[in-house]
C-alpha cells in the first residue's frame, strides 16, 4: 500500500539551531514530493517541491530538501531556525498518475525555544 511517514510527531529546537524533518514514502514509482507548512488556524503553504532533476531543492523561507531515491526519503532542512518557524510541517506526495491527488503524512509539530 502507498504510504507517507513522518517519524517525528514533535520536535523542539532552539532558535538559531539547525532543523531536519524526516519524510519517507512507499510508492511503486517515484512520486512528486512536496513539503507544506501550517501555522495555527491557517491553511497549508507550499515550501518546496521535487519533480525530477537536481535532488537538492530550495524553497521559500530558507528551507531546502533532499531527495534520496535509495532511501525513499525527502527530508526537509533549515540551517538556522527562527522563532517564526514554529508550526506544523507536512510532507505530501502525489503519484505521477494521480492527477494531483495529494497523500499527506501525519505531520511534525515544530516548537522553537529561545
Amino acid at each position, binding site marked *: 500500500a502507498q504510504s507517507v511517514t513522518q517519524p517525528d510527531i514533535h520536535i523542539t529546537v532552539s532558535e538559531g539551531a539547525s532543523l531536519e524533518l524526516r519524510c519517507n514514502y512507499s510508492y511503486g514509482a517515484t512520486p512528486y514530493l512536496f513539503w507544506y507548512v501550517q501555522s495555527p488556524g491557517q491553511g497549508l503553504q*507550499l515550501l518546496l517541491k521535487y519533480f525530477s532533476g537536481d535532488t537538492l531543492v530550495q524553497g521559500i523561507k530558507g528551507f531546502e530538501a533532499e531527495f534520496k531515491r535509495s532511501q525513499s526519503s525527502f527530508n526537509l532542512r533549515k540551517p538556522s531556525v527562527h522563532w517564526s518557524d514554529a508550526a506544523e510541517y507536512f510532507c505530501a506526495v*502525489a503519484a*505521477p498518475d494521480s492527477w*494531483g*491527488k495529494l497523500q499527506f503524512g501525519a505531520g511534525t509539530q515544530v516548537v522553537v525555544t529561545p
Partner: protein
Amino acid sequence: DAGVTQSPTHLIKTRGQQVTLRCSPISGHKSVSWYQQVLGQGPQFIFQYYEKEERGRGNFPDRFSARQFPNYSSELNVNALLLGDSALYLCASSRERAGNQPQHFGDGTRLSIL
C-alpha cells in the same frame, strides 16, 4: 492575485444537519480539490473537480458530495452530519489537473458538530 478563498471560516452544526462549504480558486485555476483535516492528523483527500466534473474521490461516504461551477468555484456538501465530521475542511486549487501541479490551499472552514 487573490489566493484560494473559503467560506465560512467557522461553522457550528448539530448531528443530523446538512452543511455547505464554499471555495473560490485562484484566478485561472481549473482544478479544485477538497481535503478533510481532523485535529492532529494530516489532510485526507475527499474530492477533485476539474472542468466541472468529478475526477477523483477519496474514501468518504456518500453523505459527502461536491460540485464545481462554470466559474470554477466549488461547493462541498455534507449530509446527516456526525460528530466525526468535525474537522478543518481545506480547499486547494491548481492550474491544471496533474500530479506536478502545486496545490494552493485556502485557510479552511472549521466545522464543529455538537
